[in-house]
């Protein structure tokens, strides 16, 4: 049995997780086995966690590591507050994700799979736990272990996740050589995003040719997108990569003529509402300064203030820094402060704008992880996309959006406003 069109990874979604038996009825039983390595490479599957690194390369790197004690780490942390794709996937098709992890484990020769779900999502933890029990009763496959690290933005970064598995600390680690192999204990670890696992599960059943039926030649397949902001209701959609943004927005019931879209997540970039005809894939969005990232679209309607939205995101991101590296611990609060000054009480707005640009250039690339780079990308894209509106702020025109309390990008409340580290 083959799944012909969309949905693929979301097939059989019924509002509750599929049991193992239902899962096998929906997707069939895997057939490829050892041929999976070649098929993965032919499929051109890109990781869906945000970085978009080719999964086959990652797998090959691990296959050529020595040792019998390798592990697969399934990353379902979903650090992005506006992303819901991994949670949605695990609450409807948990076994597909676990299947993919199991195949990857067989491929690299791992005997253990560590599934990491944030402890904030207790419902998802329960779903995964139930699915793992079902598999345990079957008594086949590698050993699955469920981990529930605390939720924070950087905890989903792969080195931070491995750090948690080793030392119970959700802090990113410094890795000068990339790509490098992370280790859980002394075992080389393959860290894969949950959605990527689901795609691996499908490729193992239906093959690379089937996978490439959807999508574009350089970004094949389908992907999950979380659409929030000015939408009828926040949704997670499964779309083919390369779908025009306009039809994604229509399918999500979003504002058809928005001011801008936040693409990729909080460490992503703004995309002007003029570019709605662009295809949703990295090769089309890249030249526009945006990207698919972690599969996130936030729709910001006309009349909103892009600067205000950016400021709220940057302020939260600055507070989420793990404060290990100086440029991130001091630089991001400085960026947030500059944005606030531009918004509210600019004495010397031109000077602030120049300083903001300089600081962006100084901060980029100087952290141990990509957290500061993501924020810099967001700020720089805001300066580009909202240039006209920022000009109005600089010249002291009143901004109508500041008089309303309606905000579009969901930012989690800081627990205590006074907890802001730099104040």
């Amino acid at each position: 049995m083959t799944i012909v069109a969309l949905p693929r990874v979301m097939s059989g979604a019924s509002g509750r997780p599929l049991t193992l038996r239902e899962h096998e009825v929906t997707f069939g039983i895997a057939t490829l086995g050892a041929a999976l390595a070649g098929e993965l490479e032919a499929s051109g599957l890109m990781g869906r966690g945000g970085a978009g690194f080719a999964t086959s390369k990652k797998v090959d790197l691990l296959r050529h590591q020595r040792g019998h004690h390798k592990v697969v780490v399934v990353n379902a942390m979903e650090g992005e507050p506006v992303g819901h794709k991994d949670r949605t996937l695990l609450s409807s098709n948990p076994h597909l994700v676990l299947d993919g992890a199991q195949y990857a484990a067989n491929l690299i020769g791992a005997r253990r799979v560590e599934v990491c779900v944030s402890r904030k999502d207790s419902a998802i933890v329960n779903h995964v736990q139930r699915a793992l029990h079902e598999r345990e009763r079957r008594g086949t496959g590698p050993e699955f272990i469920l981990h529930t690290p605390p939720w924070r933005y950087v905890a989903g970064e792969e080195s931070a996740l491995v750090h948690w598995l080793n030392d119970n600390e959700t802090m990113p680690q410094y890795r000068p050589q990339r790509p490098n192999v992370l280790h859980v204990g002394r075992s080389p670890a393959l860290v894969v995003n949950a959605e990527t696992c689901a795609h691996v599960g499908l490729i193992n059943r239906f093959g690379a040719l089937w996978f490439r039926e959807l999508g574009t030649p350089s970004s094949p397949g389908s992907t999950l997108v979380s659409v929030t902001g000015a939408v009828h209701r926040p949704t997670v959609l499964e779309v083919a990569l390369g779908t025009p943004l306009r039809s994604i927005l229509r399918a999500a019931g979003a504002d058809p003529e928005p001011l801008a879209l936040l693409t990729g997540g909080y460490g992503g970039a703004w995309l002007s509402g003029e570019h709605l005809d662009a295809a949703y894939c990295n090769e089309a969005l890249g030249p526009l300064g945006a990207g698919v990232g972690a599969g996130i679209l936030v729709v910001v309607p006309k009349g909103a203030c892009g600067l205000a939205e950016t400021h709220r995101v940057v302020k939260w991101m600055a507070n989420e820094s793990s404060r290990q590296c100086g440029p991130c611990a001091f630089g991001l609060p400085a960026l947030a402060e500059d944005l606030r000054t531009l918004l509210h009480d600019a004495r010397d707005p031109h000077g602030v704008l120049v300083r903001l640009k300089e600081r962006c250039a100084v901060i980029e690339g100087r952290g141990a992880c990509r957290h500061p780079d993501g924020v810099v990308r967001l700020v720089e894209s805001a300066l580009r996309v909202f240039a006209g509106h920022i000009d109005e702020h600089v010249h002291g025109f009143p901004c109508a959006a500041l008089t309303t309390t309606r905000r579009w990008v969901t930012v989690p409340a800081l627990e205590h406003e006074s907890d802001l580290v730099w104040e």
Partner: protein
Amino acid sequence: MNRKPDHFVLRVDPILCDGFGHCHELAPELVQVDEWGYPIIHEELTPTSEVALLKSARLAVRGCPRQALRIERTNGPA
């Protein structure tokens, strides 16, 4: 065919670094500091034949109280 490494890069571990700023004082031609006192190092390959630069890089490495600096020796670009 392995050549002997004839270039070096000065690198900082940003997690270890606490912004003492000694490296900037010891090797100002290689290390600038930002407004918060953390080093900005342009990680570009420098030929080992530039003895003065290598010497000050060594000074910076030895002078770092957090031992966050390192000299990596690599082959040149071509």
